[in-house]
């Protein structure tokens, strides 16, 4: 290796010893993430077997009803929140940069923070089961059961523990969107990106709009449980259906959020084993984007039996049928590719085929239950359990196992056994169908879901016993797979490079892999560069492309333009640190201590988390480089520091705030939802007391101050750019005072009027909007003070202004939040 290679290797070296855990590089974090998600999957699988043992025979008393409820709740929650969503993030963090010839994703520390949040939150939620205090309200946590009838700590563990993990999901979504759009190799235009990246882009955007409504719902339910704000209490004007709306606006896209990334793996595997490029690239993009959109129009089909108007049911039934179109299109593309190609047999491809077949069966029963009259019969029966497992196992688990066989050599340099693989495959395929097919029948003859046992003599005995037997065969398949994964492979030779003779860029990785990701970042002009670009591998290895060196010993990767992938920036990405671990630990403390109402501990943890994150930002972001431009190779010189819409940080802020705005819109939706369901909202009086509103004046004063604060922020940005320090500091000072004034005015209205949030759902809805806005304004104030401190410390100047530019972007959203909150509570419906 030449001197340049040595330097590059040094820059990307993985920390040794105990410092290994300070790594933030995508290959380490992605691997930990995958292993953790897989461990939670095994835990969820064991819970599934416990369920099947309990249901094997009628009138079984092996588990108490309480234990059973905890077990099935945890099975669903673990599989959805701790496996299905995290595994997609894990695999993407591991693979996406490699597929796009990037050295890393743009925010490695954010990925690491997300991983630690996931690990801490997951262990906390799972651990509750061993203390007998696990949540037992189902993975959907419907009130009033979880608000009035389960007053133990279980629902709090679910709400706070999983909200904490959702933070990690949104962090990953930000990372993956920016990664897919901005960190591609030069020349890799949008029509050339690997299909995996298209799918991940769609899914990440879906996460951004699907998770925040659930976070908003979690907030409302936790406020009801902890502080008695009656959002879901029908006696005090609340409505349990609001939770169902918020949950399923998340919950149905969620199904596609876990399905699309897995099918993305299929889209990578199929061309390799068919030895031909994917047929209908544009059609698959249609399928991914179309499914992404339509999946947001389906949520009410989980609520067909709640007594909604016929028209509403019709609209959602129709959309549920329509989504079958794009879903089907991609499957035809896969079949066409396999037909036109020369298919080579492997365990990996067998799992792909099993996945497609299983998913098609699940999809067809899905079309059945999308028809409302059928759903009325099948709702809450075992038919649904059969349906959803065909969808999820066919659409998610089998493709992920195919991906495991496909990418195992990429990660470890060793291959899994084809012989053991065949045993695994048949055990799983047979076991799965034996376990889940009979459930359709048990459901049709009337067995309800979520019951801890059933009486004999109703025809449930035999199909249940068969299901249990099948579940254990399926479990045996996983045991064989697990053995294959962990069995010592020391004597086994390393696989050859690009073992499957694939065409996509990730297979350029050396065996054993090196920490730099790729020796030099190539120019891409085809969809399958390893098949279609001559000498690509040797040219990359010889360092003939971009960034073959790390002269300054720093970690660097390229940022390119969104559509055409033209090089725009040499991005320096941060290296190992324990800050992200501590930030996650302290953030976790806030959620975990709050579960037990240990407010002081939660407050201390919150303060520590705040300080840690500030240190992280201060020392690791928007650093002023020692020179403006850098020669990245091939005669190209790129800027090191950029701000505004061409900077990855600006995109991250924009995307984060879109997610934040979605959560806020969900809260506003709740406010108007109450208006639609009440004859008169708010009523003049309730429970013998007059219903009090916040008045018109103070909320509008708050809006006015918010607008002026926002103008001052913009003025601060431009005075920084024109290097007028005095103006800059005064504008920052002014906007801070105005923002505090705006928050105070917003709180002052309800306080002087004497509003009591526990009185009625209206009072609670107003107060939660005020609370949300005040917290956001406080964050806005901290950001402004941070910018002033940055300039004072010489870490921000007229040209290096990313901090204030990003804060201004955030303030656009804050202004919208203040304006909507103020005008909604003041003017609609008008209460004085």
């Amino acid at each position: 290796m030449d001197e340049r290679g040595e330097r590059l290797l040094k820059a990307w070296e993985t920390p040794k010893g105990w410092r290994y855990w300070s790594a933030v590089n995508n290959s380490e974090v992605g691997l930990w993430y995958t292993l953790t998600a897989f461990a939670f999957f095994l835990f969820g699988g064991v819970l599934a077997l416990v369920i099947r043992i309990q249901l094997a025979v009628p009138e079984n008393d092996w588990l108490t009803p309480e234990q059973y409820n905890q077990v099935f709740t945890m099975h669903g929650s673990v599989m959805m929140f701790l496996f299905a969503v995290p595994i997609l993030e894990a695999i993407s963090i591991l693979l996406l940069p490699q597929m796009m010839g990037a050295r890393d994703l743009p925010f490695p520390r954010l990925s690491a923070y997300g991983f630690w949040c996931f690990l801490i939150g997951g262990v906390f939620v799972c651990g509750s089961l061993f203390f007998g205090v696990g949540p037992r309200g189902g993975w959907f946590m419907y009130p009033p059961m979880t608000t009035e009838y389960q007053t133990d700590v279980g629902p709090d563990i679910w709400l706070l523990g999983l909200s904490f993990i959702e933070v990690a999901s949104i962090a990953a979504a930000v990372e993956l969107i920016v990664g897919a759009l901005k960190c591609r190799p030069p020349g890799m235009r949008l029509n050339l990106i690997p299909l995996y990246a298209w799918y991940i882009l769609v899914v990440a955007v879906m996460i951004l709009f699907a998770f925040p409504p659930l976070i908003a719902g979690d907030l409302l339910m936790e406020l009801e449980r902890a502080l008695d704000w009656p959002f879901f209490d029908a006696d005090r004007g609340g409505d349990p259906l609001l939770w169902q709306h918020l949950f399923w606006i998340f919950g149905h896209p969620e199904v596609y959020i876990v399905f699309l990334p897995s099918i993305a793996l299929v889209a990578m595997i199929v061309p390799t084993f068919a030895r031909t490029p994917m047929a209908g690239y544009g059609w698959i993009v249609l399928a991914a984007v179309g499914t992404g959109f339509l999946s947001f129009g389906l949520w009410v089909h989980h609520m067909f039996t709640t007594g909604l108007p016929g028209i509403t049911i019709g609209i959602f039934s129709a959309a549920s049928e329509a989504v079958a179109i794009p879903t089907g299109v991609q499957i035809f593309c896969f079949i066409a590719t396999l037909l036109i190609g020369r298919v080579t047999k492997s365990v990996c491809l067998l799992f792909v085929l099993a996945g497609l077949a299983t998913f098609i069966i699940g999809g067809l029963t899905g079309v059945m239950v999308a028809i409302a009259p059928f759903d009325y019969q099948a709702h809450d029966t075992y038919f649904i359990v059969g349906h959803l497992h065909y969808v999820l196992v066919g659409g998610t688990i089998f493709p992920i196992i195919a991906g495991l066989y496909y990418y195992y050599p990429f990660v470890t340099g060793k291959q899994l056994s084809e012989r053991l693989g065949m045993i695994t495959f048949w055990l799983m395929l047979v076991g799965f169908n034996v376990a889940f097919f009979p459930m359709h029948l048990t459901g049709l003859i009337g067995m309800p879901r979520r019951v801890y046992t059933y009486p004999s003599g109703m025809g449930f005995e035999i199909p249940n016993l068969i299901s249990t037997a099948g579940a254990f065969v399926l479990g045996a398949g996983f045991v064989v797979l697990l053995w294959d994964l962990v069995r010592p492979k020391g004597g086994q030779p390393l696989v050859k490079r690009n073992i499957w003779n694939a065409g996509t860029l990730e297979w350029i990785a050396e065996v054993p892999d090196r920490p730099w990701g790729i020796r030099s970042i190539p120019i891409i002009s085809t969809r399958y560069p390893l098949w279609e670009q001559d000498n690509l591998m040797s040219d990359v290895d010889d360092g003939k492309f971009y960034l073959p060196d790390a002269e300054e010993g720093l970690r660097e990767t390229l940022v390119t333009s969104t559509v055409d992938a033209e090089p725009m920036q040499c991005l320096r990405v941060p290296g190992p640190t324990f800050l992200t671990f501590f930030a996650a630990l302290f953030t976790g403390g806030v959620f975990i201590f709050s579960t037990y109402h240990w407010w002081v501990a939660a407050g201390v943890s919150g303060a520590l988390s705040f300080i840690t994150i500030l240190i992280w930002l201060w020392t690791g972001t928007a650093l002023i480089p020692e020179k403006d431009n850098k020669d990245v190779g091939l005669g190209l010189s790129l800027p090191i520091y950029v701000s505004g819409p061409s900077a990855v940080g600006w995109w991250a802020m924009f995307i984060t705030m879109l997610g934040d705005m979605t959560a806020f819109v969900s809260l506003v939706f709740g406010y108007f939802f109450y208006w639609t369901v009440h004859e008169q909202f708010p009523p003049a009086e309730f429970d013998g007391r007059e219903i009090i509103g916040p008045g018109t004046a103070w909320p509008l004063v708050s809006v006015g101050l918010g607008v002026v604060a926002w103008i001052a922020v913009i003025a601060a940005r431009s005075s920084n750019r024109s290097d007028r320090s005095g103006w800059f500091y005064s504008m920052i000072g002014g906007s801070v005072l105005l923002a505090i004034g705006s928050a105070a005015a917003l709180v002052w209205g309800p306080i002087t009027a004497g509003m009591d949030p526990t009185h009625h759902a209206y009072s609670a809805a107003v107060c939660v909007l005020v609370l949300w806005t005040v917290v956001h304004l406080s964050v806005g104030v901290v950001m402004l003070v941070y910018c002033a401190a940055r300039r004072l410390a010489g870490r921000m100047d007229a040209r290096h202004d990313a901090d204030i530019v990003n804060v201004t972007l955030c303030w656009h959203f804050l202004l919208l939040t203040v304006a909507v909150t103020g005008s909604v509570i003041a003017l609609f419906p008008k209460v004085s």
Partner: protein
Amino acid sequence: MSKPMERHAQSEPRPMRQQLWWIALGPSIWAVHFLACYLTAAIWCEKFASAGSANSPLWWLIGVYSVIALVGLIVVSVMSFRSFRRGDPPVSYDFDDPHERTPFLGFTAYLLSLLSIVATLFTVLVFLLVRSCD
């Protein structure tokens, strides 16, 4: 008559709609129409529909939404179709040449607008078939 490949090579696709957001336009129109229909119907059924009423203002509103949405979708699909057919490439979207991106985005946008038209018609159909809030 030159061969399709040659024509494709010679053609100069118009550099229109290079933005990624163009492909999201069709589905977004569907989404807005869908949400508008759902919210209008939900509010109407909760607040204004009484037993036995013909619900006529509701049908008018939905009719107006639907005409606007369908006209919008047809415009998007025609523009996308023109964009990707420009230069008569045989299967332009499967080539890797420098001009290929516009046909690709145009083609994908075209497919998505067709899907959105179908999905929008599905929604309209509900209002034609289900005539009451019950």
